[in-house]
């Protein structure tokens, strides 16, 4: 296969950046999208040119490191797929693809397709946990969790924190990311003691980091590689409202 690429190149965070054309030759349909980019980069390195910077790590869709826009869509055209699991058999010979980094004020571009997502860490830091210290836990089976609650918690906890939801949202909202953690812990008995304080702290931090508001378009759900549903956001809004009505310390 041969693929024509238009790739965003930006040397530093302050650089203006722009698109550069590349041709990926001799691409096998069984390659992953990132392996195709590896081939392009190998040819650049041999010529002594700076390869295209993009992030990736596990390359099996679980670490959340990779991600950029393929033809305007976060992680590319396949539903429920991170770009490392997107395979070239999805494309046709001589396809033309535009690759861009996530675009959001809270995710500044570091270089080429790499952005700074540390704002996600700071949202978790604000309250995405149960405040238990090592050493004091009771026997695990003393906490009963209904299978349905545990399954729902797991559905939300499956978020990989890649940032595709933010990139897809016209408001650059991280509501899906934030709500997935809020919902995961709200479903479980272990999350109850801090239920109210957690959601408020996380939502406030979300806003302070410069993410926008949710306006219920559902773009986030459509591109999420883990198919986290937008019902999490509704859940978070209910939790937030509830927290506003109960006493806050």
């Amino acid at each position, binding site marked *: 296969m041969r693929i024509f690429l238009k790739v965003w190149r930006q040397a530093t965070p302050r650089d203006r950046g722009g698109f550069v054309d590349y041709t990926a030759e001799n691409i096998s349909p069984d390659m992953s999208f990132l392996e195709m980019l590896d081939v392009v980069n190998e040819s650049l390195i041999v010529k002594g040119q700076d*390869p295209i910077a993009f992030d990736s790590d596990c390359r099996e869709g679980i670490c959340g490191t990779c991600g950029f826009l393929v033809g305007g869509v976060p992680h590319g055209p396949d539903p429920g797929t991170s770009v490392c699991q997107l395979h070239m058999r999805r494309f046709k010979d001589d396809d033309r693809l535009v690759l861009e980094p996530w675009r959001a004020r809270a995710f500044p571009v570091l270089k080429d397709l790499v952005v700074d997502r540390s704002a996600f860490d700071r949202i978790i*830091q604000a309250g995405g946990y149960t405040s238990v210290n090592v050493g004091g836990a009771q026997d*695990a089976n003393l906490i009963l969790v209904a299978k349905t609650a545990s399954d729902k918690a797991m559905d939300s906890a499956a978020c990989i924190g890649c940032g595709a939801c933010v990139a897809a949202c016209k408001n650059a909202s991280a509501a899906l990311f934030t709500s997935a953690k809020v919902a995961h812990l709200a479903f479980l008995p272990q999350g109850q003691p801090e239920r109210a304080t957690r959601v408020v702290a996380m939502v406030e931090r979300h806003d302070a980091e410069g993410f926008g508001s949710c306006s219920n378009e559902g773009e986030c759900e459509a591109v999420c590689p883990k198919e986290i549903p937008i019902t999490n956001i509704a859940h978070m809004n209910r939790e937030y409202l509830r927290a506003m009505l109960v006493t806050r310390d």
Partner: protein
Amino acid sequence: MQLDSKTPGGPLAEKWDRHRFESKLVNPANRRKYTIIIVGTGLAGASAASSLGELGYNVLSFCIQDSPRRAHSIAAQGGINAAKNYQNDGDSIQRLFYDTVKGGDYRSREANVYRLAHLSVNIIDHCVAQGVPFAREYGGLLDNRSFGGAQVSRTFYARGQTGQQLLLGAYQSMMRQVEKGSVKSFSNREMLDVVLIDGQARGIVVRNLNTGAIERYAGHAVLLCTGGYGTAYYLSTNAVNSNVTAAWRAHRRGAFFANPCYTQIHPTCIPVSGTEQSKLTLMSESLRNDGRVWVPRTSGDKRPPKQIPEAERDYYLERRYPSFGNLVPRDVASRNAKAVCDEGRGVGDSGLAVYLDFQDAIERLGDEVIRGRYGNLFDMYSKITDDDPYSVPMRIYPAIHYTMGGLWVDYNLMSTIPGLHVLGEANFADHGANRLGASALMQGLADGYFVIPYTLAHYLGSATLPAVTTDHDAFKASEAAVQERIDLLLSVKGSKTPRQLHRELGGLLWDEVGMARNEAGLRKTLERIPQLRDEFWQNVSVPGPKNNLNKNLEYAGRVADYLEFAEVLTLDALHRQESCGGHFREESQTPDGEALRDDANYSYVAAWEFQEVGKAPHLHKEPLTFEYVKPSQRSYK
């Protein structure tokens, strides 16, 4: 130097409690005066950062990823063992201990393994309290499944994403400490040197991967939690950024490297396809709970699997190992897969694959139950291969997955450099020559949550640690050396990419230091590695700037370290003229092809001391003694 494991005295079951009591403590008001540097944020690193932060130490946490949540522990699928005996099927701490020592082919330290089994139950309690969404029964109790090398169900799991959920639990606990100010998190930092002052580990030098700046950090102790060295083989199930650099730099500073030849080759991975493949993907061992492994009975049978009648299939694991069946340990399953493929009975285009078939389980339980248990794994498989495992058997083949070898540590997890502690996969101690499934998560978390808080306090409470700053000459010298190496990489301006050289090294190691090893092949490899290293330093191409984000420069540095490390890996495999666990020497096998140990000559830990690049390291031996489990020929028949 005499290796002292510092194993406490007394009966096995009481050693850890006794040790905890005899260890020194640091009082709560003094803890914040100690700065602890933790490198790596996988299960071991993140759990250590959170537990030490909770205790009040001043923790500096570093990772190469853009967030601590992305460390490669996140990719672990199947589960975590704990001797809870919730299933009433005969489990106990004693049995988990026994299974692990036997599974490791009697090449681990008994006292360490017992401690691990003992702590396994606390890990589950803590992780449940954190809100890790483990699988549940309908009554609300925790569910379990079975893993290889065990005849009980002691594995706790969160679908096929157990590592992800445990890591997020540890990461969230760590971030809670970041919010409180007791932990400072430094992402996008790669450790390039350990700084020793008066022989003690007192700091690190890192490269800021976003800006290229070289930074110095000082502390009272350094904890390396940087994982294994599986990517030396180029293709492995490890993440593409996993590397040996931090451990290797520590080795060059005096930390002994133990048993590097003990590498784990996981039997159930998606087979290699094409030459540009960048990594291999694991299909969890838990699949062998319901999947049956088979190949055609006759070699060269190329019919599609559905057209091969039952009588012409060879369920070779069930046939050879009736009592463990498809759930034999990983080393045994991998060797058998290789053997049937060597006989020409392998399947798929390459002939380097065997079937993992769910037909019987689907008929017995239905699609939905199987989807509930393994849905995400089946999805992952069909994305990569374009096959549907619900209707066609999976094709699988062994791949490098984990490394039991690592930096030598004593019972306190301290290396041969005072103050330098090594946790998780980066150390060597608990799994012997073969790790059982669902034990890596257990060990990483045991080390970080429950061992290091005690043993580190003992070190801090007993060592003399004068005040140092990053202006010390040792920091300056270290930074200069790091800078010089980076300049050297950039100055070669050759015509080969780091990836080409890495792939060549990996292919060599996989062929000669992989599933089966022999003297001639190992000797040939030892001649070839220095040639490859020379070629690297004469002909590598590393374009781009040093003072900016430059992933190719990072990668080149890691490949350079692999080209040094590969020699001690191969040398260790050559010197150990026995087969044990994942280390299979063709010269040492039983009449029916099983690994044949040589306890009279090799019942020891091989710890290698660095001399200089290109010069053979010096071998030190820590004898292994077995008081409670009598070593015998391992049998799963």
